[in-house]
């Protein structure tokens, strides 16, 4: 039974994947400029959602460290570019490595304290506040509260493009790469350990999963990809402020999209972001006088969806598929 279900869901995955990639690759030829801008943002949210899914969904390490990783990636590539002229392509790698180095001690301290699961989330939230205040106070770190402007010199080496199409294809490539990495990870032994930890931390420890080690690995991988996304975000927006580069609000958005799509499921981020973000964007453009109305809508959708389908849309679909075969 297990085998056939795995087979059916993997066929489904291949079909979905192929159709999606073809459609997405052709999209820029159809879309005018503004919707294309939105399409890049949607892809970025899917990317950030999947990066977050690695640690919080697959491995069950629910926390809010990721705004720090986004900020690390954004600031590292930007400062290396503006101060030393290093191409953002190398800068974003440096940022990703730095994010991994940052993630390990913070995760270690929080996990070693052996506080109950959700306390980890709030401790990490405290670290985000520390990071925002720090970036705000020290001019070296974030250019202070006036922010950093990235000079606009279009060119592939400068990671800047005069049309959105360049950004679109880079983000698409990054998202597909990340999806492939996650797909392989979930099928590996490590993915099995992650899922055991997410299902039941104590039981997985009892059967010999090294909790500290695998939490650190999950957080490290997640930090790496999240920071790459942060660098992309900085290049795409063209300027950086501590409050937008290190943003809890953005992260809560990612988490809620993921919750609707299905926490810890492979397709969760795609479904959640693809469903909610367009609705919110339409609402925002139709009713510009209510700037926060889309937050109300997102919040209500999350409450309703979780009340009906506690494991999100993809969580529900996968459990149905497993039962039918």
């Amino acid at each position, binding site marked *: 039974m297990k085998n056939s279900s795995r087979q059916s869901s993997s066929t489904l995955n291949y079909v979905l994947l192929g159709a999606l990639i073809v459609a997405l690759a052709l999209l820029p030829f159809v879309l005018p400029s503004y919707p294309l801008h939105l399409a890049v943002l949607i892809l970025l949210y899917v990317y950030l959602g999947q990066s977050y899914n690695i640690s919080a969904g697959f491995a*069950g390490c*629910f926390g809010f460290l990721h705004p720090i990783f986004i900020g690390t990636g954004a600031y590292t590539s930007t400062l290396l570019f503006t101060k030393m002229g290093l191409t953002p392509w190398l800068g974003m790698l440096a940022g990703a490595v730095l994010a991994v180095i940052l993630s390990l001690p913070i995760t270690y*301290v*929080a996990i*070693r*304290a*052996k*506080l*109950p*699961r*959700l*306390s980890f*989330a*709030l*401790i990490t*939230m*405290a670290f985000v*506040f*520390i990071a925002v*205040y*720090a970036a*705000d*106070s020290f001019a070296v770190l974030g250019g202070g509260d006036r922010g950093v402007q990235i000079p606009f010199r279009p060119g592939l080496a400068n990671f800047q493009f005069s049309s959105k199409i360049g950004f679109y294809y880079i983000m698409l490539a990054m998202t597909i790469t990340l999806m492939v990495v996650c797909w392989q990870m979930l099928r590996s032994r490590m993915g099995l350990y992650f899922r055991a930890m997410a299902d039941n931390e104590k039981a997985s420890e009892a059967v010999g999963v090294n909790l500290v080690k695998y939490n650190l690995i999950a957080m490290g991988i997640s930090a790496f990809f999240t920071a790459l996304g942060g660098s992309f975000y900085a290049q795409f927006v063209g300027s950086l402020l501590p409050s937008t580069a290190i943003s*809890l609000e953005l992260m*809560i958005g990612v*988490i*809620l999209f993921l*919750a609707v799509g299905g*926490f810890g499921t492979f397709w969760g981020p795609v479904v959640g972001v693809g469903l909610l973000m367009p609705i919110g964007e339409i609402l925002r453009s139709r009713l510009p006088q*209510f*700037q*926060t*109305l*889309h*937050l*109300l809508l*997102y*919040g*209500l*959708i*999350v*409450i309703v969806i*979780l*009340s009906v389908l*506690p*494991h999100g849309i993809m969580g529900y679909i996968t459990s149905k598929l497993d039962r039918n075969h």
Partner: protein
Amino acid sequence: MDLTILLQVILQGLMLGAMYGLVSLGMTLIFVTTGLMNFAHGSFMAVAMYLALSLFTAFHFDPYVSVFITVPTLFIIGWILFRFVVRRLLEVHILMAAQVTLGMLWVIESVLSTIYGNNIQSVPTVIGSSKVYLGPLVVTGPYLVTFVVAAIVGVLLFLLLQKTDFGRSVRALMQDRKAAELMGIRVDRTQTAVFGLGLALLGLAGPLVVPMISVSPFVGLQFTLFAFMIMVFGGSSNLLGSVVGGLMFGLVDSLGRFFFTGNIASLIPFSALVLVLLLRPGGLLGEK
């Protein structure tokens, strides 16, 4: 002269800290009986503060009068939310319940900012400028009232937890949920009541602190974090810890604001949290 100011700062910090302690106690009670970390906790305090603002602009109610409306209102909100949304999700997975409170956070922020705008606001009270002299020290009315009310409610809560059947159920749940269930304790009822109680405490604290602390729609998350830090300071395994943690938080915060300014001052309580986590992960009163 300088010493007097310092003592003054310490005194005000402790007085505000007592009320923070109550807010955190609500969060701790919910946490120990359900296992749920409520991310919207501080946002509900913002709701109570804005309710006091509305009651003031509409009927010229003093915040101290509004308390008699906000406490039952918040209790009912908490009761309904737990009974119809949170409880079902707790049975599935604790993470989903936590995510639903994140959803509530966004709903509250959006509604507050649509109704009241994004400005920082405060509510005046008739005793706002009254002063009480304690030797060389001066305490303004709102601080004193907050402290006295926090002390009285603290004692009442202690009696409630120690002397009543409800309190015994709560403490049983805290020790061992499964065993408590086997002993015939109605777990769901106790949890619902505790969730309502936790929010009712916010209904009390919100109007009381709004003359001193201004409110804006997006301040809730910060309140949640303060309450959580207090819980870690005190240790979640000990309810008295919340009170000690609250006093300590008030002290650290006001001393930080006395010696430093701006962002550095805001960093002080967070740094204290990291220190406590490193040195005494179980909290000051918790087991090591």
